[in-house]
């Protein structure tokens, strides 16, 4: 870990103070890590569906694998904009809006529930894992806005 990052971590952990750059880095990496984790689960499920040889299940396998793509695109776009200009209220608002939309998607889209409760023996935790990541991001960005 670079010295700056190590120092920032120590300050955050011991003193409870968060640097702005560390906040951005933590927010982005937290979303990416959560998203990667769920993507791996979805790929496992998608592979299984395809390998059954049952056409109906094979047909849906691509949709399962790409379930998070629209959300990820919106989130990444918003977070990158925010990373570039964190002090700008517009970018923060846009990022918060993307987080809210993603949260709504996770809560309301039946497909998320389907993959999370799939009967094929593959563990998928899209709502829980991504939901936690979104909540953390929302907290950080809201706090940052209040500080500004």
């Amino acid at each position, binding site marked *: 870990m670079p010295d700056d990052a190590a120092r920032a971590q120590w300050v955050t952990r011991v003193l409870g103070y968060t640097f702005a750059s560390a906040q951005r880095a933590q927010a982005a990496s937290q979303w990416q890590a959560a998203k990667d984790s769920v993507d791996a689960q979805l790929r496992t499920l998608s592979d299984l569906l395809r390998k*059954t040889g*049952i056409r*109906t*299940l094979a*047909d*849906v396998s691509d949709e399962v694998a790409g379930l998070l793509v629209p959300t990820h695109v919106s989130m990444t776009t918003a977070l990158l904009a925010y990373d570039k200009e964190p002090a700008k209220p517009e970018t923060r608002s846009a990022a918060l809006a993307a987080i809210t939309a993603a949260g709504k998607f996770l809560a309301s889209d039946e*497909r998320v529930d*389907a993959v999370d409760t799939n009967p*094929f023996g593959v563990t998928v935790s899209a709502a829980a894992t991504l939901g936690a990541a979104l909540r953390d991001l929302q907290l950080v960005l809201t706090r940052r806005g209040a500080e500004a």
Partner: protein
Amino acid sequence: MSDTKKKLPVRPVAELKPEEARAQAKLQFQVNQANLFLAKFKRPPIPLQELAASEPDPRIGASTEQARDAYWGGDWETIRTVYKSPETPIEAKDAIRAMMLDEDAGRQALANDPDLAAVFLSTADPDTLADTDLWAALGNKKTDVIAASLMTIAKKQPAPNDQPLDRETQRDPALFSVLAEQLTLEAWNDTSNAIGARKRGLGPRVCMELWRSHGYDEICALIRSGVDTSVAARAEGSGTGGGVRTGFVQPVQHLAAKCLRDIASIDTERSADWTSFANRQVRGAAKINAALEASDTAVTLTKWKDVQDSDMIKEFQKNPGTIWGFEEVRQSYVDAAHETPQGVQPLRMMELWKAVEQALSADGYDALLANPKAAADKYINAALGNDLAEPYADKDKATYIANFKRDAKAFLLEFAAQVPKATVIRPARDATGGARPGVSVADIAGVSSQLMPGIACKAGLWWAKNEKKPVYYILDGVDMDDVVNYKTLKNQAISNFIDAGGQPAGAQGHHETITLVEIREILKHWDELGFTPGEGGVRFVEKGKMLDSQDLADKLADWQTRMRDADTAAGRAPAPERQEFKHDLDAIDPAVFAKLADGEEGDKDARDIVRKANYLINFANTRPQYALKYLMSKCDVLRSYGLIPVGLPTTAVAFSGIVSRDPPAPKSDVEAAERELVAEIKRCRPMFQKPLAKAILDQPLIGRDRVKAALRQ
């Protein structure tokens, strides 16, 4: 309930064992859950068939458990897939078979799926069929299902001695016997009145497969039970080999008859080089001939010595000639004749074929018509590149080749001189008037299959007559009803071809049966082709005996009368729609298409105009001396559509008469007749003018000048 059924209990849930009930419930639960999952993706539920057809499918595999799961679901498609899977163990297949044969639902499933039923039966333990209710369940599909099973079984090889039987891959004689007995003789010996009709073929088809797979004992059993082994059937495609000749499954009697010389050579020096396959087949043929003899159903001679000592071979030695008939049936006579001192020569058209076949393509035939002698020499020289006289020692080899050259040359010249019916194999025309690649007029008319060999063989009869060679025609195995009704059957085949979409749809047209065509040619022209002492001609032979004059007279009269009546009743051959011939018609006369009569007669006219126009032009070019006769007797359709003036034949006859008058007619009369004939020829369509001028204007003058020259000399 049988042991097997205890292993695979009946369907009602109440009778399930607890673990099986649990398995079924679990499976159903899983499917339901999967469907809930799919519903959230707005996808339809999984159809049961899809489960069966999926590969790999977790429910389908190589275990009895999985087969049982499918059974519990009433999922016959899955059972079928499980059964056919190479991974499914034999024990599981046995269990499935027993299960289905024991259960009403299973038998009904088999009745609804004849293909599956045939697969099941072809591998069944014959003991399980002893008191089954399957036959009743199959209802009117029983014959088809059993026939398919027997065909499958007949293709399998027998199990090696002392090895356990695997019915999947090996023939079980007991199973074959049980199934064979389930069919009536009517089914085996289908009498539907059509050459090669599919229904007609069960006996010959099964016997052919048994012949190929050394099932001689089974063939003998069929013979003993009354199956007719003397009839042919239409084969798939038009190949030759393995019991099929030019598109027909050969009667197994014919196949066995061909082996008489070899049978007499079993365990002799001659048999030392035989392959194991040939050895088994010859010994099998011996068994078949013995069974035929015992059942008194042989249509041929069954012993080599009887052939050697037959009247026909004795007659041949006095008057050597050619030997005709069904290929396999005549073979033993040909073998016997070749062994005589008089037999060192080609004895059948097949032996001239290396030269003949070169004249059977459109180009080869055109070359022959254009210059018969040169083309014949070319074809014969090419044929000599083959080892034609292989069976003979050196001295005889030279004699045989000399005779081959003589006969082939004479035949090809005769072939060139025949009515040029072979012009119908020329390419049809396309919209631009050019040749349609690979499509002939005969293809469009549905008559191209084996057409050229048939025409060549008919020419062979005339060649033999011209050469004063006796034609020994073996009638063994020939059903004269097929000869008599040939035109009806041919018209029916063409009609089926048209109904199936004809040449554009790739439909199968009429398939010429050469032997029958030859016999019809003989019957039609008996006055010319029949035997005359010293002049050669056709002599009919039955089981080695020459038909004597009284027998022959009675039979000939009957055959000829019946054939004429049947031909009259059959009428003109059906034709495809006129549109198929439009481009060829346009090349003759662009206006003629619009003049065609309405309905089917107009379609037939369209075909005949194209055909006759080609014949006439070829006739005029190649046999000008006969063109006028052809024009007068065969070209009504050309005259009725105005392609040839109605008065042309009369004018041509008048001109010919004046030219050949003796004493010579006045010059002015000749010139007047010539002017009149020229005017008539000019009224012909342009394509006819030059050939007809050569044939009916120049030819009489040439003839007259020759006569004059001869007289001067």
